């Protein structure tokens, strides 16, 4: 049975993929369906959902279209989640490979740095970084990656430690390849699968962290974010609960989708590896 068919047989993986597909579609279609600024004032303030079909999900306290904000918010959430996870994975894989392959002093230094980052709660680190540098999309990505790269680094190092003793590595040494070339061209690609398995968790965590930062007012104020929408809705929670509930549900579904799809991928690849 091919991995793809095995993947398709898992209902939770399918559900996750479906959610993610919808999400990506939303993010890609946002500028087409809602051209112009999603923060523009589109109608009367605090219009409840399903009242006016030109504003199907209603409007917020300033009269901005909640549906348009939701679509554009999906872009921010996904962009930040994917970018932060990519940065964390890249940094983690490089640090882990270097540490594992070089060993000795380099390994010690790099791993102690990793320890240092791991002892600080990653959300606090992100909070401190954003409030010091000032909120903007790039800063938020870096802030989240700052707390997320240690996991991949440790996994990569562990993998590299076992791979570097294999015969093909010894072979590469014998033919006189440069150590860095061996590390990154021979070892890293083989160490990567378990590191990538972490990606779904990291993406999910990154999306949540971004939402939490925006909720606390540390997101980029010039972009729509779901966390920011929830925070704004909180002031009118009793009179217009939909303003917090709609982006909240979107956030839950996104994280769930990323996680389920990621689990599905891991399951299928894990079975394949154990079979081989």
């Amino acid at each position, binding site marked *: 049975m091919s991995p793809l068919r095995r993947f398709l047989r898992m209902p939770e993986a399918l559900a996750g993929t479906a959610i993610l597909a919808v999400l990506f579609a939303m993010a890609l279609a946002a500028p087409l369906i809602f051209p112009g*600024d999603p*923060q*523009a*004032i589109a109608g009367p*303030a*605090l219009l409840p959902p399903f009242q006016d079909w030109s504003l199907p999900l209603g409007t917020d*306290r*300033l*009269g901005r279209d909640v549906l348009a904000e939701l679509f554009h918010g999906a872009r921010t959430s996904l962009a930040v989640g994917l970018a932060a996870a990519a940065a964390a994975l890249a940094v983690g894989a490089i640090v882990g490979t270097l540490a594992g392959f070089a060993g000795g002093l380099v390994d010690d230094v790099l791993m102690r740095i990793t320890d240092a980052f791991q002892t600080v709660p990653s959300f606090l680190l992100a909070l401190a970084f954003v*409030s010091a540098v*000032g*909120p903007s999309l790039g800063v938020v990505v870096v802030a989240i990656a700052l707390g997320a790269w240690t996991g991949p680094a440790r996994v990569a190092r562990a993998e590299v430690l076992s791979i570097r003793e294999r015969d093909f590595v010894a072979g590469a040494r014998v033919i006189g390849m440069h150590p860095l070339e061996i590390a990154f061209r021979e070892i890293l690609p083989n160490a990567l699968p378990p590191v990538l398995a972490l990606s779904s968790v990291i993406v999910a965590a990154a999306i949540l962290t971004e939402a939490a930062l925006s909720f606390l*007012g*540390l997101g980029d*104020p*010039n972009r729509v974010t779901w966390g920011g929408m929830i925070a704004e809705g*909180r*002031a*009118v*929670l*009793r*009179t*217009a609960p939909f303003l917090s509930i709609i982006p909240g549900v979107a956030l839950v579904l996104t994280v769930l989708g990323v996680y389920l799809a990621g689990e599905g991928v891991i399951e299928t690849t894990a079975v394949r590896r154990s079979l081989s």
Partner: protein
Amino acid sequence: MSDFTISRRTMLAGSAMLLASTAMPGIGWAQTPRRGGRLVVAADSEPRNLNPAIVASNGVFFISSKIVETLAEASFDGKDGLAPRLALSWEGTADGLSATFKLREGVKWHDGKPFTSADVAFSALQIWKPLQNLGRTVFKDLDAVETPDDLTAVFKFAKPTPFQLIRNALPALSSVVPKHIYETGKIEDNPANNAPVGTGPFKFGEYKAGQYYRLQKNTDYWGKDEPYLDEIIYQVLPDRTSAASALEAEEIHLAAFSAVPLADLDRISKVPGLKVITKGYEGLTYQLVVEINHRRKELADLKVRQAIAHAIDKDFVVKTIFLGYAATATGPVPKNDPQFYTADVPTYAFDVAKANALLDEAGYIRGDDGKRFSLKLLPAPYFNETRQFGDYLRQALAAIGIDAELVNNDSPAHIKAVYTDHAFDLAVGPPVFRGDPAISTTILVQSGIPDGVPFSNQGGYKNADLDALIARASETLDTSARTELYKEFQKQVAADLPLINVAEWSFISVARETVENIANNPRWAVSNWADTYLAN
């Protein structure tokens, strides 16, 4: 005593109250104030320094005005809008060089020592003039305070100082603290700053960080039979949404300073047992202002400033952001001020086409992307409404081709960015009008203010005519001539737009119906609450 104990008696009293309220609904009570009881109030901030003579701000007054009293308090019906407190009468000489205060007899400090004119002299010369945020300007020419007897204080000024200004400054700036406690050591480090000693109807009880402040009845208070309450508890509820639920759950009696979000008022006004009160803040008007950095060449152009003024829909701001609990502004003096306000100023109707035409005229033509130029916009973080107005202003500017980038900061960072580093193009600020333009309003437009003074002109605006007008008004002794000068001041500010006044708002209180005698003066939330009581 760190926790509140519930005695049998208070339980009985409480259940009796409950019985009475169910048995006799809707019967008007003969207003004989009931004595006793504990008033629980929501507090949203925890000021470290509680000395109102040093920090004259509403956050401090909210708690310490019950402990430390001023010479006079604002009043709805008193002469010149004042009611006597520690001073019984006040009078200025025609040359503006001296002002005489007759003080109340038989007043005692909370530690039992008698209150005398020496305390007033000490507070004025050692604290209000050199240390107080607002007193520094108002009392800058105060030379000496003579004390011919224990109950007379004569303020001597080096330069003529309008008595109208001194009078208008009394409610906020004249907190008297005890000389015998403050005369030793450094005033800023005195422990009484955190546990104030005063003459007021309540004594400082205790403070538990993050939990509550407790004030207890001063049994030696000079007011006959006052105060009625035994205790006031300020329950710290930093989360704005929790004040409404605490009121509904009958955990607190009162949430002042709009602790209940405006959007919740409609709902909460229908909750039985609660009342929404819009009175009692007339003397505490906040102004929603767009601060402008005139160092930006585009913003130094009057046409651009006029265009921005025309682009702002003030009615939308009042209706949507303040939900009607505000008024549109015409200039730097709020409409509800009885002495100085004039409507006879240039106004800027909401007119996007005109704004666009003005910008075209000024030479800032839209680029291919529809944008003329970009700005940095810093909304002050103190109120939900200032932030929301920032969001709105960004949209309003987009409609006239100005691309505004929002920058959100926390309070210290905002103050540093705007008032010290001048790292802004437009900022949204909430200055307070304090009954006289010379106290905290002229400073917003006058030039020559050193960097780093918060809530002052840090936008680099310089207008020699306006500066001369402000200087002349500050020396004019005749009340009506002085008032006329401030009317001229409003005209010039509205014409030249050193800043743009958008709206004026005050706060809303929500209280249980049993709380009586609230909102009975224009600064009620920050007055002494001696006559406040809990009805049966």
